């Protein structure tokens, strides 16, 4: 008698094979810092698409509440006062709550007290303000790779669809998505089903944007 082992397909086994140029062409970076850093010019010279704001307030909230950016480079001091008393940390908490797939680099060279160390913990990486130019570019490219990583986008997608990671629904959807990677018709079906899953205006917008990105990236995805 033959024994058949059926293994559930998992997002963990997927790898995005996007080139540096593709990532550079598709990505958008937002810098939030009360003092305009020279890094903006360095990034522009290196052909990154970068926008800069002094702060995120209730007036320009759509910059992070909508999925416009792939990476936010966030200062700690003198920003985010509309979100709480913890400056950059309050803003980071809000950004991660509404759009967890947004990759955030903590951009400071300040020595933060232990009560504020969550600013480092919750971010996706640390870019010291006094890092060298070459080093900064490398870290930013690394962060953008994460922004286009299937696993990171999947977590954002689950969050927008209010599905718990590791749940039955998550595993079922992972299966559908992975089948779609090698079969475009199945990917269309997955997309249609997923579209109807989002509720609430904001999470719908973010969810659809992440979903579009996932579908687009699936063309560049390899099953490992």
């Amino acid at each position: 008698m033959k024994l058949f082992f059926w293994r559930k397909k998992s997002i963990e086994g997927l790898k995005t094979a996007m080139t540096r140029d593709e990532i550079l062409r598709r990505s958008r970076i937002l810098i939030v810092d009360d003092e305009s850093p020279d890094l903006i010019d360095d990034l522009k010279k290196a052909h990154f698409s970068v926008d800069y704001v002094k702060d995120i307030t209730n007036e320009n909230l759509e910059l992070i509440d909508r999925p416009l950016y792939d990476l936010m480079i966030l200062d700690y001091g003198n920003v985010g006062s509309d979100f709480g008393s913890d400056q950059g940390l309050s803003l980071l908490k809000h950004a991660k709550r509404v759009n967890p797939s947004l990759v955030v680099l903590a951009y400071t060279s300040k020595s933060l007290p232990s009560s504020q160390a969550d600013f480092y913990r919750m971010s996706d990486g640390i870019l010291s303000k006094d890092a060298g130019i070459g080093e900064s570019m490398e870290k930013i490219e690394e962060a953008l790779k994460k922004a286009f990583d299937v696993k990171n986008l999947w977590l954002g997608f689950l969050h927008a669809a209010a599905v718990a990671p590791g749940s039955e629904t998550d595993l079922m959807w992972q299966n559908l998505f992975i089948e779609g990677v090698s079969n475009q018709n199945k990917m269309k079906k997955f997309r249609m089903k997923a579209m109807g899953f989002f509720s609430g205006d904001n999470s719908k917008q973010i969810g659809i944007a992440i979903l579009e990105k996932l579908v687009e990236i699936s063309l560049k995805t390899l099953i490992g």
Partner: protein
Amino acid sequence: MISFENIAKLSPLPIIDLDNMAMPNDGIVISLNETCRRYFKNNNKCKEFYQNIAHSDVMGKIVQCPAGFSCFKTSLANRRVAFIGFIPYPRMGGARERELAKKHSDVKIQADYVAKIASNIMRTIEDFVKIEFDILKRNSSALHEIRKLNRNIKQTAERWCRELKPTNPDAADIRLVKIWKTSEIMSHQFDVIELLANRDLTQLPLNSTIELYKLIDKCFRIYASADVDDRMNLHCTPGYHPVILACDKTLPIIPTVLIENALKYSIPDRAIRVDVMQDNSYCLVSVTNKCYNKNLPDKTVFEGVRFSPNIEGSGYGLFLASLVAKQHNATIELKTRPGNSGIANCEFIIKFKTTN
């Protein structure tokens, strides 16, 4: 980190370091008596007794030693120590103790007073640590402003080098490169000071991946520019690109401290070698230098103790590097080999678990 020597300076009774067994220190009120000193020097039973005390569950208790004196095991500043060479009152009992009590009336002490001594020393150490941290924190905010100025120098110099030599900025005008690399060294010094003031940074998660060789190469290049005698060599297994999970805020401190120390302690005309090697799923980074026998470090260098008072430095570098290594689930091993000609070999090996 308070050294055992500093703890001993606060102790009224003779005291022994149970983690690093050596001749006990005198107390500031009661000196180590000759009987104890002789026993410790000539009698292995004495050393064995304290080795057993180190590992047995007698914390906060008075125990009689083979010579007939008593000892009291306690923990001060995260170190296991024991007050020794006293006779408690009321006595523990035994003919030997009775005889010693007659002979050494100056070492008699009320039994419950020993625990009070320990807690008084502990409180003094805590106050000392608080003051030390407070000073470091104030310094840290002041240094932030200097750090900003250094950032301007560093980034301007680097931009200029990149404009002059876009494909190889390290090969730009040597004077400009010198400014750039010197300010890089300054940045690393600020990182060390920051970590000293805020050791919680070693609790941060490892949420980045770092190509270890790239980092070592970067640190190597920075310090190579400061090495006027051109003694530094970097070697790596060909085609080896180790990647590790890391905290990018703290990891650079390890290679920085080790390379800087090698430069500082090395004999002027002797080579300093940095190796990056594969050991199955681990990456070994080794920093080797030659130094004079008298400057040869021992394992206390990881405890924030200065081992060579003739050479400038805080003594905290390797202590911080060991904290960062622990954060990265890595280990730092020290291998030393004194030489006959007065010149010794000193090697630090760090072992990182790789993800690739």
